[in-house]
């Protein structure tokens, strides 16, 4: 029953990566009868394999292949080899995500028109808008079983949320709730409800949180039209004299180079590996890499303006109990330049276990100033700030020819500098976060610098015109008709919202488009 396609089958769609973009695309195509080979660099881990232990789980799931960093972001100093915390496994980063499933706000599709030109920023309107995306968001929310949609009840709030909610209301915030989450509040989609276990970031052992690993991927495989090849590390995409892609070279689990022919190739390796793959696929016909006539492959990297606020109270909170991200304040997500910056941010509760708190509360910090904070770990509450950071052309992924990976290929270097708008937004958010906790009696508060990025966007962005980006409104590269991008690297701008729901919606829509084009004979 399991599909198995021949290397020389040039009728297959090859999807690189099986996360929110690639995993959903692969399944949606398979459901419509398209033959798909999905190449996944990592292995397959399911709920029975996940581990309720932060560092052990990190070793199991995290992408640890080398990358280098540069720029003034603190990540380059504190975590120079780990610019992102994402997943290398079937299901991709949907394995460890927190589940926040928010639609873009209408104006966020038109950031340049709405915010105006921002000096030093490379703002651009998406070539699509809210009206276009509404039906696809509808389908995505149904697929993920998002709470507070389609009759799904909201999740109950844990201790960390209750502190957050009280402070939010004391400050007069109105849009406070346990949020739209892709975590079952009741039995749904043959998956049980959340048990408030507290290890969402380590993979949900109950399967209550949606992940492509145990939904879209196995469903696609059950059609007989999807073959997932694990431990298949894509190295290069090849093309013919006409400039059409012909297939993907990849290293299999034994380290041998294989070539899978393809009718269409969809790149969904997350925002470092996707542009890296296109750049490493440079040829004499495309000396700057595939689909890079604009020069934008790798550029405009966004990771959301992030940061955290932790607070200590004089009584226990036990924030680690229950969902890792348990609630949201959305009032600050609006565009309101009177605050001193364009765009907005969401505030979402966040908890780390003691081991990760020691690593991320104050990277490099030591001495009693640091240890007195951990002494009160039991009395800590925490939130994460997710805001729209400015796309900058100089924030980019490039090939680092001085550093090679285990296959001899140059690794990705990630360069990032904060934009003044990012800094102004973060400072505002730190102040608000502090005020929220002080309103509930916090005795000590900590602004915490951004972690290795879990939201990675923009490096193959969508644009109306080929000169401004890499892909068109369908995620199809401007330069090569049968080459698509299907992950968050498509994002023209980052908006204030967690990206997964939008990536899923775009993938469902892209599958629909690809099938129509294939039927019409255009692809």
């Amino acid at each position: 029953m399991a599909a198995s396609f021949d290397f020389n089958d040039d009728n297959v769609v090859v999807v690189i990566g099986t996360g929110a973009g690639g995993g959903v695309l692969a399944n949606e195509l398979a459901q419509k009868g398209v033959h798909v080979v999905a190449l996944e660099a990592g292995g397959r881990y399911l709920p029975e394999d996940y581990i309720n232990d932060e560092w052990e789980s990190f070793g199991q799931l995290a992408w640890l292949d080398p990358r280098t960093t540069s720029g003034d972001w603190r990540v380059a100093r504190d975590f120079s080899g780990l610019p992102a915390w994402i997943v290398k496994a079937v299901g991709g980063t949907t394995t460890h995500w927190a589940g926040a499933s928010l639609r873009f706000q209408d104006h966020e599709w038109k950031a340049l028109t709405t915010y105006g030109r921002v000096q030093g920023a490379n703002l651009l309107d998406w070539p699509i808008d809210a009206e276009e995306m509404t039906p696809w968001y509808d389908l995505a929310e149904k697929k993920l079983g998002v709470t507070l949609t389609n009759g799904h009840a909201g999740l109950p709030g844990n201790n960390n949320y209750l502190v957050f909610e009280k402070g939010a209301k004391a400050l007069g915030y109105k849009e406070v709730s346990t949020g739209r989450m892709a975590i079952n509040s009741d039995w749904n989609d043959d998956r049980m409800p959340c048990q408030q276990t507290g290890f969402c970031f380590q993979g949900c052992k109950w399967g209550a949180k949606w992940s492509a690993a145990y939904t879209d991927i196995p469903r696609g495989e059950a059609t007989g039209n999807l073959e997932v090849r694990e431990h298949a590390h894509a190295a290069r995409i090849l093309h013919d004299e006409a400039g059409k892609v012909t297939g993907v070279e990849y290293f299999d689990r034994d380290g041998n180079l294989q070539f899978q022919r393809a009718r269409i190739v969809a790149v969904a390796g997350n925002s470092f590996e996707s542009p890296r793959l296109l750049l490493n696929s440079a040829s004499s016909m495309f000396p700057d890499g595939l689909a890079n006539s604009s020069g934008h492959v790798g550029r405009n990297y966004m990771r959301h303006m992030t940061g955290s606020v932790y607070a200590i109270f004089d009584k226990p909170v036990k924030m680690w109990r229950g969902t890792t991200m348990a609630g949201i304040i959305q009032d600050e997500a609006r565009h309101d330049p009177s605050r001193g910056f364009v765009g907005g941010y969401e505030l979402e509760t966040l908890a780390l276990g003691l081991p990760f708190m020691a690593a991320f509360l104050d990277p490099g910090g030591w001495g009693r100033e640091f240890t007195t904070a951990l002494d009160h770990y039991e009395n800590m509450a925490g939130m994460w700030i997710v805001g729209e950071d400015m796309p900058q052309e100089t924030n980019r992924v490039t090939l680092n020819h001085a550093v090679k990976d285990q296959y001899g290929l140059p690794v990705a270097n990630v360069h990032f500098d904060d934009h003044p708008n990012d800094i102004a937004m973060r400072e505002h958010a730190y102040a608000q976060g502090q005020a929220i906790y002080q309103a509930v009696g916090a005795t000590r508060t900590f602004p915490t610098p951004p972690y290795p990025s879990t939201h990675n966007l923009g490096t193959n962005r969508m644009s109306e015109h080929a000169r401004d980006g890499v892909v068109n409104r369908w995620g199809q590269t401007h330069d090569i008709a049968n080459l698509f991008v299907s992950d968050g690297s498509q994002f023209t701008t980052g908006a204030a919202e967690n990206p997964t729901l939008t990536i899923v919606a775009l993938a469902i829509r892209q599958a629909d488009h690809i099938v129509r084009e294939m039927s019409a004979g255009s692809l």
Partner: protein
Amino acid sequence: MTKTASPREMTRRQLLSGTVAVSASFAIGAGFIAAPDAAWALEVTHLKPETMATLVRMARDIYPHDQVGDEYYIIAVRGYDSAEMAEMVEAGISALDAAAQGRGFDSYLSIGWERDRVDILRAMEESHFFQAVRGGLVTGLYNQKAVWPIFGYEGESFSARGYMDRGFNDINWL
């Protein structure tokens, strides 16, 4: 190989009979360090015992938790007592002692007040040795499962069916 002796294996007399030095918190003998009351002992094979004792003191001074016993800091740094690490550690501790002597003390370990020891560490916090020890402690100390209850952290949760019925929202002071 290093091992930690239990109190039964060493009486106080036995301990003191083999001891060549006693600081405020360590008894130091030939090939071992121990708690002054013999609550624990650690055999040391590649490092000088004084070096290991100083390393343990340094570890606590980097991440001081008064409610966390020495045994956890020892577990965190005992891996440095190896053929591969010995040269680096001896050199690093030597530099630490030299800095202490430069300030008029006999050794780092002999300094009575934490504040004076921390001043020395702060002056060398950019050094490779300090950063290696500090970085290693982030997991070496805080990823010990036995340390977690001291901070209230409850660890693994799936086997107890999560916190749905175990107080995920039991906060009572809001």
